[in-house]
């Protein structure tokens, strides 16, 4: 930063990085293009697709008509937001206690929580399936919300914990000196200071829940099916289907892609449990 960088070097860097960035992004760009083509045009040679065919939005209409995008979209929203908020309610007190009243075993408890993330989901699929059947939770939003809440709970606690740790204890003590009760302390002092941290926790967990593809495929069928299920119904074609598959894919990833772009910075921290900031 301190030195001036020759413009030529800068251009060279831009060209190299730009090419690589474009290659990484190309698959997404390509399905975006295909989604605005007719089925017949979508399977033509790449150059013909680009320069010798018309643009249309008919695939989007076809996808909505066939598999009711909005229903799945609303399920995805309900389930990912619901599981995150539910997780927050349980995680905030826990993270608060661990950050401000650390005990000898706090670190062990945190480690143990993280280790539950390592259970291979397939190992407990049948028991969960049977439990869900007995409680009438199969194919319900409540059931899937609960499962996703449980698998993301360790991450939520960890993230909040690292954010809470950064809040200086003196401020809390000062509040306590002024006679604030525990409840007031949490609501009026802690929460406002923790809002940025909570916001990024919420973002990351919505993204993880949105893209979760094991439990959502196994435990839902129609009423509660989120967008992962919606996409799976395109896994074997009937006739030409590239344009429809592209349109469905774009509709499934767009909301989360946009959210993700806005929250890159926070993501790093959340995904590394505070190890990289």
């Amino acid at each position, binding site marked *: *930063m301190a*030195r001036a960088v020759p413009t030529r070097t*800068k251009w060279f860097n*831009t060209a190299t*990085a*730009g090419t*690589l*960035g*474009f290659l*990484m*992004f190309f698959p997404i760009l390509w399905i975006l293009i*295909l989604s605005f083509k007719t089925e017949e045009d979508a399977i033509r040679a*790449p150059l013909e697709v680009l320069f010798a065919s018309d643009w249309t939005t008919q695939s989007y209409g076809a996808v909505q008509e066939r598999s009711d995008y909005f229903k799945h979209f609303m399920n995805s929203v309900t389930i990912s937001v619901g599981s995150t908020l539910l997780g927050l309610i349980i995680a905030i*007190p*826990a993270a608060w*206690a*661990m950050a*401000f*009243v650390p005990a000898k075993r*706090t*670190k062990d408890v*945190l480690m143990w*929580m*993280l280790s539950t993330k*390592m*259970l291979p*989901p*397939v*190992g*407990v699929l*049948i*028991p969960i399936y*049977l*439990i869900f059947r007995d409680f009438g939770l199969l194919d319900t939003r409540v059931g899937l919300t609960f499962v996703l809440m*449980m698998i993301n*709970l360790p991450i939520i606690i960890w993230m909040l914990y*690292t954010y809470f740790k950064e809040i200086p204890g003196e401020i809390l003590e000062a509040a306590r000196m002024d006679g604030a009760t*525990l409840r007031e302390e949490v609501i009026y002092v802690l929460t406002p200071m923790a809002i940025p941290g909570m916001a990024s926790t919420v973002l990351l967990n919505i*993204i993880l829940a949105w893209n979760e*593809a*094991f439990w959502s495929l*196994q435990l839902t069928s129609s009423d509660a099916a989120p*967008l*992962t299920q919606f*996409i*799976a119904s395109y896994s074997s074609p009937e006739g030409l289907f*590239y344009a429809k*598959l*592209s349109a469905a894919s774009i509709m*499934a*990833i767009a909301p989360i*892609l946009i*959210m*993700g*772009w806005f929250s*890159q910075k926070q*993501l790093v921290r959340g*995904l*590394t449990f505070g190890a*990289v900031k």
Partner: protein
Amino acid sequence: MATKASRASARLMISPAVILLLGWMIIPLSMTLYFSFLRYNLLQPGPTPFVGWENYYWFFTDPSFSAAMINTLVLVGGVLTITTVGGICFALLLDRPMFGQGIIRIMVIAPFFVMPTVSGLVWKNMFMNPVNGIFGRIATSLGFQPVDFFGQIPMASIILIVSWMWLPFATLILLTALQSLDQEQLEAAEMDGANWRNRFWFIMLPHMARAITVVILIQTIFLLSIFAEILVTTNGGPGVATTNLTYLIYVSSLLQFDVGIGSAGGVVAIILANIVALFLMRMIGKNLDA
């Protein structure tokens, strides 16, 4: 500061989370353990007698078992190598001065947000299909025989798809780490005559070490249970070429409906995961400020 009263209330505040996680772990786990000792096939209703270690015998002697172990290692190892090495290169490149860095960064990071079912289907059809996919089209137009990705190099194809998703993750984290590097230190080294290689080797790489460990650890957690990408592309085949441990258990419990053997496999997978976890936790523990 920590009075007895606050200790008690702290415990109270932690307990919902701990009880839930404990229940989430113990209830299904003990059921899996219990099922693994029963002859229990969903397609054969009726009594489910206790059969001791029989299911474990069948699972370990499954001809696919050793293949699945090797495939799991290859898949995790391959993706880790590509993403870590690639991630370091990308991070170094993106850290240099350039125009429009923000936009380039957004493009690099985007694949991480694509859900696994979508990336599996898109790569399988629009890119790797030998007749209508882009790679096939390019090969044909240049006069080459198109590559049948999932037929000839199935595991490499899966590794490619999974790496496409995780390379941005590694890049993002390593770049963040690199950007926190003290510029003055680098400049001082340059003044002292250290060339780029030395600066990379002795300053940048050690600085990134912690982030690299974290990238490896966290990816391992997710990569051990890769499922959706295999399900929508190869279904574990051809043969057992892309069957990993997760997929093998899925096959026994949900395609052969043998809950007993599937559960035995689940127990094995959990034990293996715990060995890895124990090892990872040691390392991760040092790197996290708990």
